[in-house]
């Protein structure tokens, strides 16, 4: 009896949560297995990621969180011997289904990498690259508009306004990372994946990026991998804890950090392992 009520309540909670957000989950993963050759990197991962929130993926090195992130825009496709099983849906559509165009998918799911990797081109061309290949700007003025708003949104415009023709690689690390974010949002994706976006940056640049992430969640669904638990606690609303290729626990960030259910999660967030 107790048990039945319990399940009922959690089901209600889910409905309520969805009702409150008035949006279904943006990304849902079901039974995801990933293999690199014979080695299994992810084992039966089920994870729902809500819209317009920051979801943090945490866990010790080699736990599969980056692998999972890279499944979401099929960046693993180019890795030799990588095989993905299970179902990952973006707005209810399986992105691994036959006939899904990877180019289109990646225009909807942008990505920011661990190490800032601007193209060795001008700042302008870096941001304009995505809209250019996807044919999003009809005219030169359109393009200028897109570039300016993207830089503005990434909080970089004031710093680079007078040197848009300077090479993007000449910026500082933090500026480069914000340039990469500007480049990603220039194509107006729905989801932005961030793979440890601050691990190569100093605390001040990190603070700026975190602030930016917080603003971006108004318009985008953000999924970020981070090694820093403080960062996860600061910027994310949802947290998923991975350990040895398994998704151990997921939930609201505050819950994960204050009252983790699983022993491993507790050990990790309190700093005993990891």
């Amino acid at each position: 009896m107790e048990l039945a009520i319990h399940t009922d309540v959690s089901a209600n909670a889910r409905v309520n949560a969805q009702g409150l957000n008035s949006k279904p989950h943006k990304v849902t993963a079901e039974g995801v297995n990933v293999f690199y050759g014979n080695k299994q990197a992810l084992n039966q991962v089920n994870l729902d990621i809500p819209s317009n929130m920051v979801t943090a993926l945490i866990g010790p090195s080699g736990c599969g969180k980056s692998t999972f992130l890279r499944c979401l825009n099929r960046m693993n496709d180019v890795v030799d011997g990588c095989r993905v099983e299970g179902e990952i849906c973006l707005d209810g559509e399986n992105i691994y289904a036959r006939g899904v165009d990877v180019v289109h998918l990646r225009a909807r799911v942008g990505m920011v990498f661990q190490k800032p990797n601007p193209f060795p081109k001008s700042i302008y061309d870096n941001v304009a690259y995505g809209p250019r290949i996807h044919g999003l700007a009809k005219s030169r003025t359109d393009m200028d508009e897109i570039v300016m708003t993207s830089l503005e949104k990434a909080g970089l415009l004031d710093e680079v306004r007078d040197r848009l023709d300077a090479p993007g690689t000449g910026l500082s690390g933090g500026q480069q990372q914000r340039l990469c974010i500007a480049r990603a949002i220039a194509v107006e994706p729905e989801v932005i994946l961030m793979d440890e976006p601050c691990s190569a940056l100093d605390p001040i640049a990190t603070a700026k990026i975190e602030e930016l992430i917080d603003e971006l969640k108004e318009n985008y669904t953000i999924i970020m991998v981070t090694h820093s638990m403080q960062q996860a606690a600061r910027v994310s609303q949802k947290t998923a804890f991975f350990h040895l290729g398994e998704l151990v626990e997921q939930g609201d960030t505050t819950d994960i950090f204050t009252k983790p259910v699983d022993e491993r999660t507790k050990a990790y967030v309190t700093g005993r392992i990891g």
Partner: protein
Amino acid sequence: MSDTLTHSERIEAGLTKRYRAEKRFRLYGIAAIAVAMAFLVIMLAAIGIRGIGAFQQTEVALTVVFDETHIKDNNWQAIVKESMRKKFPEVTSRSDKRLLTQLMSSGAGFNLQNMYRADPSLVGETRTVWLTASDDVDMLMKGAIDRASPQSERRVSDKEIVWIDSLIADGALELKFNTHFFTGGDSREPELAGIFGAFMGSIFSLAVCFLLSFPLGVMTAIYLEEFAPKNRWTDVIEVNINNLAAVPSIVFGLLGLAVFLNFFMLPRSAPLVGGMVLALMTLPTIIIASRAALRAVPPSIREAAWGMGASSVQTVLHHVLPLAMPGMLTGTIIGMAQALGESAPLLMIGMVAFIVDIPGSFTDPATALPVQIFLWADSPERAFTERTAAAIIVLLVFLVTMNLIAVVLRKKFERRW
């Protein structure tokens, strides 16, 4: 004793030894560079000293009459003969007269013929013209024939020396800049032999070689590096490409002979076939260098492009290729430089022939610079020695120019990115 040394003292004792070893090692390096530089300087100096003479040619000022009958007979050498005899009226005996005409090159008449062709109104006119002297006179002027040696041991007799000296005294015999060397084709007469035919042959061959090997090599490298799945077939291909780079060039010549000439019936001695054979030889070099250049492009650039939704082709064309281009060009330069200096495969497909005409197209019979050097080095006339060295100078200048162009191109590519 050693037991009394402290830890730090023991390290200190070893330090002097370590520093000495380091110094010695650095000295070895400097010595190696010095020896290499010395050899280079000696080689260049030897070639330069020997070859510089060929850029000058002895010419004789003659007063010639464009005699109508001789022109009609097309006997231009007779005009030269007559004017020589007029210059030395005291020479009467038949054998002396022959000696006298031998002072002039057998090609002197061609100079007159060319003048007449340019201006037919010269008939019946009298002109003073500088005409090419024979190679023996040339060698005497350049000191390659020793006046002091006994007459029987030199190719210029005492009589001839007297005539030559009188011409010099008149100011009618001088060393002039040898334009013919740079504009003429090959000849059996050293004073008439020019490098331009071989130069054009090399240009045509290299053009074919570049047009075939650069796109093929780059495309192969891009496919293998960026698109091909890594399986047993690509491994086999890779091993074979690496092996091909080590195949002796003459084997490619044999292949060209068997396939291009005998099977496809392409013209013999043609720069077209020469270029194709050289392309076969150059391809592995370009492919290996291009693959290395592609591999050197950081993967983060590819990920950035893929992450933006660029297709594989866009990723390669927009980002990877421009970054790899300088490295690819370097590989191509090395390949083309090898091709320029290669003679063995060209021998097999008949580009070793004696060809007087300047090739005007890809299918005209031609030879190439290194083959020309080989041919001249094989010729017995003394005057060919300096021409051989001069041809080497031309080849080296060609090579350096080619490399300079490539370096400039590379710099340009690098600056754009």
